[in-house]
């Protein structure tokens, strides 16, 4: 995979975040989400595959293929591990857990 395809995959992920039901949690940390998605081998491969297949963010759905399901479950995981969500349950910053 070349730099262009990674750029396109990142753009796809940003577009998915923009229409995600968790965009209020994900948008403030969008750069981190993109960085971590490429750090993980499984999510990186799924993003590149979805991007190469020409999948559009507006048509992203759990009813589609395995790559789409994987990417959506990754975003949901990050949403519930985000500072925004953890603050909503009184656990941000996490250091508060220490005592």
């Amino acid at each position: 995979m070349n730099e262009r395809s990674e750029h396109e995959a990142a753009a796809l992920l940003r577009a998915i975040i923009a229409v995600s039901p968790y965009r209020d949690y994900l948008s403030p940390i969008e750069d981190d989400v993109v960085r971590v998605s490429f750090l993980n081998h499984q999510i990186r491969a799924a993003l590149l595959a979805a991007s190469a297949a020409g999948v559009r963010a507006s048509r992203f759905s759990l009813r589609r293929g395995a790559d789409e399901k994987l990417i959506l479950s990754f975003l949901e995981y990050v949403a519930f591990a985000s500072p925004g969500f953890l603050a909503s349950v009184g656990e941000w910053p996490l250091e508060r857990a220490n005592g």
Partner: protein
Amino acid sequence: MAEIDGCDVCVVGTGAAGGILAHSLAMAGLKVVSLEQGPRLAANYFRSADPYGSRKDFGIRAHTSWPADPHEAFFGNALFASAEHGSARRRAGGFLPYQVFAVGGLQNLWNGVSVRFSADDVRGWPLPYDDLARHYAATERLVTVCGTSANLPELPDGEFIAPKPFRPVDDLLAKAVASLGAPTAHVTANRKAINTRPGTPSSCQSTGGCAFGCPTDAVYKFSSRLLPRIAGRSNYSLRPEAKVTRLIASPDGARVESVEFLDTASGERHRLRAGIVVLAAGALESPRILFNSASGTAPAGLANRYDQVGRRLQDNPKTVLSTSLWKLWGKRRDYDIGYGDPVLIVGRASLPDGETFPFLCHNSHSVPDIPHYLAGLKRFPPFVKRRLARLMFHSYLTIGMFCGGEPNPANRLRPSRETDAFGVPQVDIDYTSSPRAQARMDAMERWGRRVLGRASGTIIHGGSSDNGTGIHYAGTTGMAADPCAGVVDANLRCHGIANLYVCDGGVIPQLPEKHLTLTIMALAHRLGDHLAARAAAGELSAA
């Protein structure tokens, strides 16, 4: 092949036993070399490089897999040796060997549970329990164990500092156990090798979980607690990235003359002469070294004249159950999360044929910043998930139950034709789970579900296994007075070899339901006294 300066004692491995032993012998004035096949982790490894929870990169690492079973998350830790580097290859559906190759060994990811075996647990061992009890006490003082006395014959008390307090979830669990009305079930404070004294540099900072590596070194491990005490001594040296490939015995096979190891950083091979050699590399790696030390006089491997090396591989069969307690829904946290598992339960469960057996149970409750609970919410749409996740956030409880292992000679390690990434032969593992072990895990699951139900548990996510995921490996170099029944004698000396010892989980002939680490450390402390006495009697040079 470069020969390096000899030593009185070469200790192979720096985990639970190797650390205690190296400290004990170095403090006694012996010239000691520790060989560790892994590197020394940076002091801030668990604070910065791989911190607990979502603190770094939302807890996502390169090999984190989706979707993951919540109970499997621990096993994805990057410190666990890969199949190419471990002692054994993994077979689909077979025994899963988990090893950590770094200074401190598996104790880098140790949860810290430190319980004494009882006199009944060691019945049949070739050593008196009173002797072991003395070394339990010395070890507890050395590593610092928190807990409270419970006065239970099946769970002997030790020397404890104060534990962290119970939290609302722990009280619900304790009440649920009491409500069973079973005279054999007892709840007490968990016993863990954690520095709970406030105000010290290594005090527990309540991160909520120990098994992912302690960022403050509150949980005992050699590299942070005892190694600094001996690292500067002229009679002690530690060689990380030194992978032992074989032991070289005298022509008659009656003693070990030197240890051959590979410097995995430089690729150079070295030979170290030692008066005494102690294998403390774990119940998988120590037998592998013995197999790989085969020679003309020991064709089946060193210390294996009676075909006992590698036999009776055991792990504690375990059942893990997780749930959300509805009595905690909507509650905010106003308590210290502590080290996550302050409750210890001893109990007995029943098999369908009426037989009862003992088990040990401890709990886990921490801040779920890694949202494993999503697996249980997958059927709900996002807006419902948000509400439920907030409502239930502080309500999750996991319990883990462990019962005794079975010393089946057919469950064994064997020399393999396959080699690791350094070209060193590995071992194959023959392992079959018995119907009895499965029946016991089923019985523990029934007991656990009853208790969680009484504690206001809702949907219960469960799983059982006895194929290595307990990481309490034992039995493969068992202790026995009869050389036809085990590999080492009461002093952990290999039968028939004057100066070769084994000290790790492998020497425990039969696993009781209790976690074995404190016993490994107590045996190491006892061995330290034995070897120091041999040295004082002038026996080392003659060994």
